[in-house]
């Protein structure tokens, strides 16, 4: 198995990178660091796709001239062009998601004054409880 892993070392690195990102996502309590973990996972996906598209000894998928005004369009000359398009999609989506998540994090920081998810959740429950107790008090007053 190790030999095969060494043969596919780019893919193995991508998998380990995505594991690092996932651990980051689960263990970090800081929201910005969580988003960085998500970005590491994205990068792992790009590495995996780029590695799957590579073919040994072939050129980038841009048509080469054949010397007499024509174009070399034999499929045995170029690497796989499809993963490049897929990686482009991935990059755009990851940029959009990161920007949206960072905007929400900024709002959370403005509201609760912390980036730590536990502290923010604690403040959230505290807020909820105080609101509920206020509602209870008001109900009792009305009943009395």
């Amino acid at each position, binding site marked *: 198995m190790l030999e095969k892993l060494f043969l596919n070392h780019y893919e193995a690195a991508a998998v380990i990178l995505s594991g690092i990102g996932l651990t980051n996502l689960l263990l970090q309590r800081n929201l910005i660091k969580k988003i960085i973990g998500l970005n590491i996972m994205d990068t792992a996906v790009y590495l995996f796709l780029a590695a799957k598209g590579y073919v040994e000894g072939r050129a980038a998928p841009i048509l080469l001239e054949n010397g007499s005004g024509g174009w070399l369009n034999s499929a045995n000359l170029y690497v796989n062009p499809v993963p490049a398009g897929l990686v482009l999609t991935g990059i755009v989506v990851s940029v959009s998601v990161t920007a949206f998540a960072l905007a929400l994090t900024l709002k959370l920081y403005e*509201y609760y004054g912390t980036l730590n998810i536990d502290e923010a959740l604690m403040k959230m429950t505290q807020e909820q409880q105080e609101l509920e107790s206020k509602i209870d008090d008001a109900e009792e007053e009305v009943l009395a």
Partner: protein
Amino acid sequence: MNEEIKLIWQKFFNWVSGNGPRPENEVIPPEPPPDLPFTQKPKDKYTRFHEATLKERYNQWLEIHGLHIFSLIYSGLSVLTCIVIVCLLLATVAELPPFGDEKNPANNEVIRRYVEHGGHETGAQNIVAGLILDYRAFDTFGESAVLFTAAVSVLMILGVSRRNNIEESSPDLNESGQNFLERAPPVNFHEIRQDDSILRAVASLSIPAILLMGCVVVINGHLTPGGGFSGGAILSTALILCANAFGFERVHKFFNERTFIISSSTALMIYALSKGYSFFTGANHFHSIIPKGTIGNILSGGLILPLNICVGLIVAGTLYGFYALFSRGDI
């Protein structure tokens, strides 16, 4: 001497863990008072330990140690999950076909078709450009729409609230039960220093070069590596550099929220209409009026050049918009 070393170590440690010195005008949330250590906790109503029932003892124990034990279990379980997932994926990777082999199942007849017929079917020398802007153009249209939607939603989240913050802290909002939490004041976005002559000189030299580079990458998207997305990113760096060196007001004169919305939605509309036309004629075997051109010329590739320009406009506007929204709160 020893104290100084301790202070420096403390500063270094803070810097490493991300709590380092901030800009003066950034809000530092007030430190909460430290919890009493376990030994100084106020005693409960039971003075003797054995008088409490087992359940009460358990509850006390849970109150003191519960969070700690929960976080221990949580981190242990998450590390375990990640290790299991990575091992499973590694086992899968070991079964994959070898890296860089031309007999891989990914290199099938689809790729042969794209490479062999892509040149004269799309008219683009860059096969990837022909792939993403001709064969799979609706995919790229979706990407541009996603990017535009993200920019608009960030604008909604950050821009609107910042405008409200000026009118905010009105008493009715505070009386409606939200003032018991000490709200952190809104994040102050740092002002651009106006007197940085080195930055200005370098920026005025390099901004034209960056703009030229971005235009070249966008316009040559169907001939060389590059295209709308990468060229648009380069163009947006020129805008960001301009905003940093000369202030956001300078950029605001020619690129504000209105221009951003108008240029992006116009580009999206042009994209959708022109590509809709080409897909309609292609699917119904009508004659398309769009000329393919000869491969290798700058005016070739049919719709790829205008579509690249549209995508470049959207990407440049969106990335600059993200920067402006996060650093100033407004485009």
